[in-house]
């Protein structure tokens, strides 16, 4: 008799500005399910992914998509990020009593889970909160400065945020830790309620403040590309940091050679070690050269981690199978998993991955907060920090070296 498949959900944005990431999240789930099924599934039962589009990731759209997946009887839901929903999707997940592993990268996950651990037992964040981007970036800058790899013209830093909570938290965290490490914000984080189509007036205002660093914490690839093309018309003499989305392949495709020198950070990426490279090549072979394994790895990791925990628990359970799913959740907490992105070790209270080196000094027990520097549009981004993951050296961006 053919074993009955286990339905699992993919809660991914497949339309609107986050669709480029959403496609990679979908691919990550597909690839993980294929690999697991080739090895016999979970105790002999294959995984069957079902996807729901979260659109522009508002609370309404995300809840609707979550409810749809639950109505399909999924045993677990996997997601990259659904940031605009502000954790609203946790409610239907908690009501159904299933597992939900995402990479929302939101500090509010800590608050929600800790406010009622019994209710949100199944909600896990497989990457660290965005808060860590802020202080991690300031440490990275300080490391470049103190190790003599870069000689900033001043101690001033300009911080600009988009309107999403994710970007605001990162910007505030940067400001909060800047002074301790010898940096002075030129103004309080500039939170843009609406992203400008013309960035030039803001860039000129920043130029007048003569910062050595400009950090833009908005994260959508397309928006960042538009910004960067305008920045490149007359570059400011700054070290330029763009949030996560600039890591996406489409960013490099849009800005071309101008991308060279841009710094990007991610608290979940793909280290250039043996495990990371093997995944990189498998992913490219499966989805083509235009795919971005650095993003697809997020959901890929989550599916594998869940599979291990479910197998240890003796199988899976669908909506209503709360007691069994609690057992899987406990195993997820107790079982550090060396994913292709580094180690996912869930903090027992936060139910979020602990970051290295931001929150643990043990590289074997933390998800590495990686810093990349873009090279040419055809080249993979150089991984320049931290040890022991880095495989390339920082290079002065061309607009600074020309100066």
């Amino acid at each position, binding site marked *: 008799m053919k074993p009955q498949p286990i339905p699992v959900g993919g809660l991914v944005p497949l339309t609107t500005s986050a669709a480029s990431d959403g496609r990679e999240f979908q691919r990550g789930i597909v690839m993980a399910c294929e690999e697991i099924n080739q090895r016999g599934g979970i105790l002999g039962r294959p995984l069957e992914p079902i996807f729901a589009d979260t659109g522009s990731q*508002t*609370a309404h759209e995300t809840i609707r998509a979550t409810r749809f997946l639950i109505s399909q009887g999924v045993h677990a839901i996997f997601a990259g990020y659904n940031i*605009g*929903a*502000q*954790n*609203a999707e*946790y*409610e239907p997940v908690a009501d159904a009593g299933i597992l939900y592993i995402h990479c929302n990268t939101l*500090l*509010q996950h*800590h*608050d*929600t889970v*800790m*406010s009622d651990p019994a209710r949100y037992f199944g909600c896990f964040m497989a990457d660290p*909160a965005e*808060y*860590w981007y*802020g*202080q991690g970036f300031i*440490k990275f800058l*300080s*490391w470049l*400065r*103190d190790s003599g790899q870069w000689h900033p013209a001043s101690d001033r830093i300009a911080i600009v945020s988009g*309107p*999403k*909570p994710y970007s*605001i*938290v990162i910007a*505030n*965290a940067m400001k*909060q*830790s800047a*002074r*301790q*490490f*010898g940096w002075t914000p030129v103004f309080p984080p500039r*939170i843009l*309620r*609406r992203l400008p189509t013309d960035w030039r007036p803001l860039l000129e205002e920043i130029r007048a403040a003569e910062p050595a660093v400009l950090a833009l914490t908005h994260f959508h690839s397309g928006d960042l590309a538009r910004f960067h093309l305008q920045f490149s018309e007359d570059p400011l003499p700054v070290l330029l940091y763009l949030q996560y989305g600039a890591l996406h392949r489409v960013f490099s495709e849009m800005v071309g050679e101008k991308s060279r020198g841009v710094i990007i950070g991610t608290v979940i990426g793909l280290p250039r070690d043996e495990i990371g490279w093997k995944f990189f090549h498998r992913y490219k072979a499966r989805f083509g050269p235009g795919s971005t394994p650095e993003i697809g790895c997020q959901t890929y990791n989550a599916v594998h981690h869940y599979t291990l925990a479910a197998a240890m628990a003796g199988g899976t359970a669908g909506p209503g199978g709360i007691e069994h799913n609690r057992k899987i959740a406990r195993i997820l907490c107790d079982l550090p998993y060396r994913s292709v992105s580094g180690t996912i070790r869930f903090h027992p209270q936060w139910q979020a991955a602990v970051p290295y*080196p931001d*929150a643990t*000094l043990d590289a074997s027990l933390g998800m590495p907060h990686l810093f990349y520097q873009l090279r040419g549009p055809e080249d993979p981004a150089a991984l320049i920090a*931290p*040890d022991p993951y880095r495989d390339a050296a920082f290079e002065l961006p061309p607009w600074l070296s020309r100066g």
Partner: protein
Amino acid sequence: MSPPAPPQTNSGATDAAILDAIGNPVAVWDARMCFIRGNAAFRRRFGALVPADDTELTQTGFLRALAASGQLVQAPDPVRQDLAGCEFLFTDGQILKVESWPLPAGGEVTAFTDITETWRTQRALERAYDKAAGADQSKSRFLRAANHDLRQPLASLKILIYSCMAAETEKERQDTLHAMDVSVSIMEDLLGALLNIGQLDAGKVEPRIQTFQLSTVFDRLQIQFGQLAREKGLDLRIVQSRAAIQTDRSLLERILSNFVGNAIRYTEFGRVLIGCRRHGRFLRIEVHDTGIGIAPEHEEKIFDEFFRVAEQQPARHSLGLGLNISRRLAEVLGHRISLRSAPGKGSMFALDVPLGDIWHSSIGEAEINERLGGEFAGLNCLVMEDDRMLRDALITMLQRWGIEVQVLEHFTDIPAAIAALPVAPEIILTDFRLRGGVLGTDVVHQINDALELPCPAIVITADTGPELIRSIRSQGFPVLIKPVSPSGLRVIMHNILFEPELVPELS
């Protein structure tokens, strides 16, 4: 190899059997203190030291052979000639004590009594006594130190309270309150550190070594001592550092606080300068002053407990504990203290601490949460809700998100009530139906008039009538239905503050 058999007499065999029956080593020596015989226990323990032939073995020779044998943990005194009263600690842990009795015809009998258990019991008793005495001393030292060290932040607090009472502007008052808050936290840390010292005396506490930015300690020193230095007309200058160091944050602050406190105490004119410089893998933190200086003969003694320079002390109110505490803390941390001073010109106290890896630098927060770093952290919210239970639950949630909450309970004179608020609200959460038939929406309009600008507001209601909801929304207010879900409130608050185009009521 066995020692030579002793001469046999008629009673010799009986004597030997009697001696062998004794469990402890026993030896018989002739009038010249040469070895005659030993019992079985002696042969087991010392057989290798007794010559196989007829060579004489004196007690002096026995002692030398024993010292050379490697059986002892510590060799006997080389000038010793006989065994009487010796105690031997063997490498196998056994301790033997020698007792001697003279024989009627000359010579003596020596017995080696096993005192291992007695010795252990005695040592355990000594340790227990030392521990008890140490604890008693530690308690006394703790009380003296607490008295000494708490005076400094208490004095600062006293000054700050007067400054706060005399503050002429809101900013001045807020700054002083902030400084008071820091002083109180310094006192808390201090008490914690002192308790640690007491526990360190008892050998129970390990310092908590971590990597952090020295600037965080310098900032606290500035707050702790800035006011005091100004009161005294001194220029307290801190050259800020970007270095990451590896030590115990709280204990380091104690050491430096003592240096800076002393510098201010013993300086009447000029300045106190705090800075640092790199020395290889270490950072030398220096506290310079232009004070009275220290005479060369006192440079070591000033680190002694209760040491005071007689002619200076009455006017300085010092018990002479600060530097002693600093030195003890530095020893615990393994840091080196150095001093350079010139009487009449000033002093420089320095502490060498290991440099740390900046990647490992802790920002000093034990827990990361929304109170600390959420998108609403620091936001000021005005809450108007009559139901005490609902209000308390709402306030708890908002505070968990890092929001500063103010409550408005009386609605008779809104302009006066708003003017009385310490800080103007940045967002309002109001129940629709307030006490006495007052409508929350009307109050918000009055608040906006008083503030002379529109403050974002969200209306909460238990009334689900579509007409009412429509009417509230038509006035430009987003509406939440009770019970309010945290994520629902979070979304509307975020949108109204940061993405107003997503709030249809505002369009």
